[in-house]
Structures are given as C-alpha cells and as structure tokens.
C-alpha cells in the first residue's frame, strides 16, 4: 500500500530477479474501467517477464480501482496522474533507476500526462495506445446508448451529447456498472497523445488481427508525428487478440516477448 491523498493505493512490486539489484525499473499504468479487469493477466505476465529480465516493476491500482482506497466515482483524471507520478517516485527511490512508464490503452494517456510532473524524462512503452481521450470517452458513453443507436430514429434517442452535457453540468453518470464523475470524464476528454517537444524514447506496440500484423493507419500517423517532433519511436504490431476487450480472458505471448526485447535494447 502506497499512502497517498484519499487513502492507500494497492501496489504489486516485482523486484528484479537477476542480476542483483537489476538493470532498470518500470511502472505499469492500467487502462480504464472494464479494460483494466480484462487485462490483469497480461499485465501480471509482462511484469513477471520484465522482473525475470532484471527490470523491477511496480503495478499500481489507481484511486478507486482494484484494491486501492476510494470508489471509482471518487476518481479524477488529475488524481490519477498524480498517482502515477507518486508510483514513479517510490520506485525510483527503491531501485535507484528512473522507471520507464508502461501504459495500456488509456493508461498511455495517463503516463504521457504524468511526464510533466516528473524531473527526468523516462522511456515509454505504449500498448495499443488510446490516441484521443475524446474518442475514448465517446466510446464509453456509447455503451449507455448502444441499444438505441440502431433502433430509434435520431430525435427520440438519448445521445452521447446529452450525456456529455450532464457531465459538464456536474452530474455523475452510471455507465456499465461504473460511476463516472465529471472530474474523471472531462479530464479524459481533454487528454491527447500529443507528440512531445522533449526527445523521448518510445516503444509503440499494437496487437493486430491482420495477417501479416500491421500498425493501424491511425497509429502510424501518430507515430510519424512523434518522430517528426524528434522522439525516437519504434512501432511494431504483433499477431493476437485484443485481450483488453475480449469476452474470454486472452493472452498474447508475442506482445510480451516484443516488449521485453524492446526494454532490454534500451538497457544495453
């Protein structure tokens, strides 16, 4: 438990197995709502793989998530960014290494935003990054109106615009079993995986159902923008199922191998 504002944050620490003291450190930043639960196994497998390779990993459950203090409805986007920065501080103190930030989906947006709160620029690992927080919020709001999308005519149905207006008016919405506070939704809405002015090393990894696997057109455009801004981005796609959303819990061994290899390249 990491004692932070609003109560303890549940953390899992995977110390580097070898060599003694390890060769680096990483903080995992989980995705949003149901995607966090679907991806628990993959996060645990990757954390162990990195620890075995000498990279100490800290997994933090953000405020109101998993086994941490608070309810989901208490969470705000800025509180989550602070949680990530605090996790980095703790792990840096513990290991002596500047931890890289490894995010999945909207966790990439949080990791990106946390950089502004950190003294040194860490390396970044993006797993299937959400590029636009606005798009991600829209998709979450759409879960509430899904049944109406293809049924009723335009004028009769509740729209995501109305839900957005309710959030802007200060209302908490209940969607898919989650209490979504304005402080969380509007922060997510404004988040964007914008290229950084500071040169940053990024491993951008996507899971693809195509054969051969390919980075999505939208992802490739953003990678190119980051590279043009001076960052060192290596983008790759591996074959597999979208484990953060599949009905059955899925694994993707190729993603774990590619991630560990990318991290170890930085440590050479």
């Amino acid at each position: 438990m990491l004692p932070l504002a609003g109560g303890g944050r549940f953390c899992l620490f995977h110390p580097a197995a070898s060599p003694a003291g390890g060769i680096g450190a990483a903080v995992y930043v989980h995705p949003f709502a149901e995607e966090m639960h679907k991806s628990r196994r993959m996060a645990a497998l990757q954390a162990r793989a990195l620890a075995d390779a000498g990279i100490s990993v800290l997994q933090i459950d953000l405020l109101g998530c998993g086994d941490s203090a608070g309810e989901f409805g208490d969470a705000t986007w800025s509180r989550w960014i602070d949680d990530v920065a605090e996790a980095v501080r703790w792990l840096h103190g513990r290991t002596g290494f500047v931890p890289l930030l490894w995010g999945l989906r909207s966790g990439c947006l949080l990791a990106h935003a946390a950089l502004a709160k950190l003294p040194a620029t860490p390396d970044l690992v993006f797993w299937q990054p959400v590029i636009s927080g606005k798009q991600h919020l829209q998709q979450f709001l759409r879960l509430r109106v899904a049944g109406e999308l293809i049924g009723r005519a335009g004028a009769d149905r509740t729209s995501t615009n109305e839900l957005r207006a309710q959030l802007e008016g200060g209302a908490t919405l209940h969607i898919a079993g989650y209490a979504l506070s304005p402080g969380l939704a509007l922060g997510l809405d404004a988040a964007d995986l914008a290229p950084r002015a500071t040169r940053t090393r990024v491993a951008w990894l996507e899971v693809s159902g195509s054969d051969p696997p390919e980075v999505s057109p939208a992802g490739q455009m953003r990678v190119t923008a980051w590279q043009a801004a001076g960052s060192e981005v290596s983008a790759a796609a591996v074959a597999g199922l979208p484990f953060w959303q599949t009905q059955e819990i899925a694994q993707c061994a190729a993603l774990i191998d590619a991630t560990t290899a990318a991290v170890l390249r930085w440590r050479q």
Partner: protein
Amino acid sequence: MHSEVVKVLEQTLNLKPTGVRMDADTPLLGAIPELDSMAVVAVITTLEERFGFTVADDEIDGSTFATAGSLVAFVKSKLGA
C-alpha cells in the same frame, strides 16, 4: 476500402470464413445474427480507432449498417474520400 471494412467486420464479429466474399449488396443488420447492438458498438469503436475518426451518434442509424456497401460508404464519408 471495401476489403478493409469487411476485415474489421469479420474480426470484430468473429465471423467464420464462409468462402463467400462480402460484396456491397451483402445485407448486415438483421442478416448476420452476431450483429446485435453491442456488436454494432464494437464495430464502430474498431473503425474509429483503426482510421482515427470519431463518430457522433446522430451520424449513424440502422441504415448505416444495412449492407456492407452502406457501411463502406459511411467510412469513406468520414475519411472525406
């Protein structure tokens, strides 16, 4: 673009390859049992993330998902092509 959209449909709905190629007139909504309201949301989400656009709800209704051709036409209109 047609084959890209068909690929998204097949992958998102986990359709078994039937050997029949979807053409523009292939009916979707009401003809493919896997395509329920949550699957429609999943298809929209996948198209948004793959191509990098955002769909407002008043841009789509049942007619968007009437046939493979109507869905392709919608994606093209979003991409301004």
